[in-house]
């Protein structure tokens, strides 16, 4: 994947979230809570945004919009998102397993 100047490469790792699970049947609430990505300060600066703003996340399977959350325990180049039907739009099977724990994407500022 090649990137433009305002884009960065990220590897997304998904995790389980009990709250999200409990509202999985409430579509709007679920989609809002699921579209959140935690990244480090360095990547936040590269994207030229602050915590709470939205970014576009894309790969060859599609694109999604997610709200950014600053996470000091995050490594640069990695993002964490709750496992959900939102991030699943960008997921695929790599060999026999889905790439829920190593999902390569490009992130950029959300222009809307």
């Amino acid at each position, binding site marked *: 994947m090649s990137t433009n100047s305002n884009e960065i490469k990220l*590897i997304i*790792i998904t*995790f*389980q*979230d*009990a*709250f999200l*699970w*409990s*509202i*999985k*049947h409430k579509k709007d609430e679920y989609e809002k809570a699921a579209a959140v990505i935690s990244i480090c300060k360095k990547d936040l600066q590269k994207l030229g945004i602050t915590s709470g703003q939205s970014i576009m996340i894309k790969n060859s*399977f*599609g694109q999604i919009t997610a709200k950014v959350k600053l996470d000091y*325990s*995050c*490594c640069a180049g*990695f993002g*964490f998102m709750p496992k*959900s*039907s939102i991030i*699943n*739009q*960008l*997921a*695929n*099977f790599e*060999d*026999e*397993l*889905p*790439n*829920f*724990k*190593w999902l390569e994407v490009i992130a950029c500022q959300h222009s809307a």
Partner: protein
Amino acid sequence: MIKHKIICTVCSCYCDDIEVEVENNKITKVENACLKGSSFIFRSQESQQRSPCMINRHEANIDKVVDKAAELLSESKNPLIFGLDHLTLEAQTKGIELAQKINGVIDDYSSFSYGTLNEHIIKGSLPTCNFDEVKNADLIVYWGANPQHSHPRHLSEFSYYSNSKYSEISTDRNIEMCVVDVRKTETAIVSSFYVLLSPGGDKPFMETVAKGSEQNIPQKKAQELANFLVNSSFCVLFVGSGLVYSVNNDIASLIDMLNKLDANIKVIPMIDQPNMRGFNQTLYNATGFVNRVSFKKEVSSNDETSFRKQLTDKKTDCILIAGSNPFQNMPASINKYFENIPIITIDPFITETTQHSSVLISPAISGLESGGTVMRMDGSIMHLSSATQTDKINDEQILKMLIDKV
């Protein structure tokens, strides 16, 4: 008002101390359940959340939908049965019988998660123990697992806080809890010791830990974890999906680490889907394989007979999905392969998958409206009871009807 004690069926902990109050055949109060359990139980009481029996989006009675499902399965040349991890052992047995009768393929979520790990446990090549034994452990390790979210009552009911050696007074506490993960999770925060790995770093870290008895270990954290493992008299290692996915289902490095450490370590998988271990065990007992079983010509199991390959290679021409929601839980890239395939779904709730189904069969909910047995993540058999009455038949009865009609 009547009080019932039930078993929660949301995750593979199968918490057996859930108390519900029932008024006019409706659950009005839930005690002891976690956020996931209570939300599941209350959702089950909302009629608009429950699935109707339908054929091509038109409501029909149970006999008609089962007839239609049987017709589709009988006409199919390559039928696939998928899911079953939320079903009782009795229903899973019927699902396997059905797959056998229609010469189909049967698979579940373990095919791309805990299948290999469960197979090693079932075959005895990985040592394991049950929750009663966990109470005597002096070291608990969560690796790639965050039970505070995946199994919210795990620490309090089955491992750290329920352990006989645990005390609120830290000086009286004779148990340690270690966490290995790529995030500083809620579980890591309450642990005695945690290792923050780089993503994908599990395999090399295990190899380093395995050298625990040797000198000059480069990674201080690996040495410290090795010390914890070797010095404990009884350690239980709870393996989460973080580890399974990080090693790409290659459990050899885990087995190698355990063998080299020469310590008393037992492994329990932190299975997400509640009765996945039950499915693996039931299928293994019937066929010698834990998942991905084809009954076409002879019994076989390989990558070609997996749910993923059957779909992506366009081999399947009819799919029966029981108690599972692949349209929400799986990579969306696979959804296109469902197009033009009749989908028969057995699910008590309206889900993304039921909305794509040609035939929708609505069963009673096991553990709330129907009984049965299930297998917990530690291999223990749990007996479900019911709290409310329903005129719906259960998964086992539905699958039995299908067996009789195909």
